């Protein structure tokens, strides 16, 4: 149920607005799912999220959703083509299993940000907690601050960028995901190693920094990490690594 117009910065934004203080989550998500192809109204505001879980999940149209406040778990989960911005912080699992589109978090993100994401771009302007990019499968994640422990655990594909540092066991049991960290890495996980930053990686990272709204930072300042590929096929002599 669309409840009205929103006044922001003295401008009247003619954007349909959902007030979660008076509109149910179910109505919000259903409305976002039911936007017909060719619709004119493709920009939406959500106000008073007040930490609600599952805000704007399952979006599968190229719509723009601006969420004014902090959200709980799984905001923009399984996003497929939407551009979702959280003007606040996000709880666990923001943009989990994203297929495509973009999710921006102006504040911090809790655990599992971008978990299992298959595509699209997740940008966290603050810090991301533990297990950022866990089991990532193609998503690109740019974190302006630090990332917590066990980030990119079993990361399969995609790119994880941290302008700050990383916690313990970065990239544990990683497959083919690329990790770029500018700051200090507390420790690397099993089978994760530092790798050479070749020209192709500088190019990929530069593009990611640009898409992630990062200014004044060069790709050359980062260190790349990835899989040593020693654990790809089980061998008993590697048992100590598990």
């Amino acid at each position, binding site marked *: 149920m669309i409840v009205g117009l929103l006044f922001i910065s003295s401008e009247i934004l003619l954007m349909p607005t959902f007030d979660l203080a008076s509109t149910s989550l179910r109505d919000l998500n259903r409305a976002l799912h039911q936007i017909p192809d060719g619709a004119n109204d493709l920009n939406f505001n959500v106000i008073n999220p007040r930490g609600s879980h599952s805000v704007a999940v399952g979006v599968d149209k190229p719509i723009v959703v601006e969420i004014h406040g902090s959200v709980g778990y799984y905001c923009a989960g399984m996003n497929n083509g939407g551009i979702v911005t959280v003007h606040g912080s996000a709880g666990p699992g923001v943009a989990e299993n994203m297929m495509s589109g973009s999710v921006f978090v102006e504040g911090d993100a809790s655990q599992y940000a971008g978990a299992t994401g298959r595509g699209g771009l997740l940008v966290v302007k603050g810090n991301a907690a533990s297990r950022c990019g866990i089991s990532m499968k193609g998503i690109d994640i740019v974190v302006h601050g630090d990332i917590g422990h066990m980030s990119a655990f079993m990361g399969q594909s995609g790119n994880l960028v941290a302008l700050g540092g990383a916690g313990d066991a970065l990239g544990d049991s990683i497959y083919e995901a690329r990790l770029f960290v500018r700051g200090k890495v507390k420790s690397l996980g099993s089978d994760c190693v530092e790798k050479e930053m070749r020209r192709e990686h500088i190019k990929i990272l530069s593009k990611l920094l640009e898409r992630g709204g990062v200014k004044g930072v060069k790709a050359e300042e980062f260190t790349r990490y990835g899989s040593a590929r020693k654990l*790809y096929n089980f061998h008993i002599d590697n048992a100590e690594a598990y």
Partner: protein
Amino acid sequence: MTYSNAYTPPRKSATFDDYALAEIRRAAATGIYDIRGAGAKRKLPHFDDLLFLGASISRYPLEGYREKCETSVVVGSRFAKKPIHLKIPVTIAGMSFGALSGNAKEALGRGATIAGTTTTTGDGGMTDEERDHSQTLVYQYLPSRYGMNPRDLRRADAIEVVVGQGAKPGGGGMLLGQKITDRVAEMRTLPKGIDQRSACRHPDWTGPDDLEIKIQELREITDWEKPIYVKIGGSRPYYDTALAVKAGADVVVVDGMQGGTAATQDVFIEHVGIPTLACIRPAVQALQELGVHREVQLIVSGGIRSGADVAKALALGVDAVAIGTAALVALGDNDPRWEEEYQKLNTTAGAYDDWHEGKDPAGITTQDPELSKRIDPIAAGRRLANFLKVMTLEAQTIARACGKNHLHNLEPEDLCALTIEAAAMARVPIAGTNWFPGKNDSQGALR
């Protein structure tokens, strides 16, 4: 003077039996534990240890072939807008494309559709073939999230959040490199030929409070249409069932240790988890204490082979069962017709369990295109449908003999046990007595 019988024959140790000795030698020679498919092979208390008490003077039976005995079940009606209507209380358990060939998956879908029941995806995502050939398809939501996407969530008829499975509660999946073809690798976003570990925990939730929020997310993504199942491996069925209900499940699936797997360590299969028979009463008790028995449906799997097993499970309070290994056998798995080839693999029909190696002579647990051709999905689907029909007829036969006009009207009072173990687990009296271990006499004498 010597006696001809003054001789102590060689005595093998009951502890160090031939199998244990062979395993020690094999481990010493190879340096790796045994990996295999299927479920627990050890002798366990099971449905064979229960018998039905047919009608007598105090109960009158229904006429076979004449008086109706209903078999339909509705599952998922607690919160979902579109619950599942099963014609029979026997469903097909989750098995992945990857573990199984495409033809085998198609056959499962065809057979289940003819019989009016559901089939289930597995770890690896949903293929178009199984969606197209399964009228009602349950989509598994697994820790690995291989192949997970919102389109498939929406085109599924129900969603099963897999917390664990009976063959390996607390363990993840394993698909070894030899079965990772281009298509399987693409579906799982991993390089071809590597060993694929499916995670043992979900990546973005831990504990029942998180599970509740995860279920809410899945409902929101699918606009509250799809029933949400929660599948657990049999270990703490009372608490796990209660927690699944608390988390908002429409259906709880409990898989006992006889439930199969595509591949895991033999030590895991044989030593972790509890028998199916031991899972049922605690799960039903949890539902009853929460006042949701029959409102939240209970599906049990693990070693279900016949209509008798179905009837016994239902009599103990289950709403439906799921079959995996039995369904594969109906398709042609371990068929003696391939004995010569089983021998070449150092095994024999009925014992073949190296499903992870991808060399299945029956063309079922393989990705080899030539072997896969051995299974005709139409004919195999027909065999599965026949088997499901026979299971249902058998269960109806027993139910009518107990005077029930619906399979769900079977009750624990229709059963007795042959062993103390089975009596304790099923909480039904030992045959000819009114006693079972743990029974409080104040509950009253057997009537």
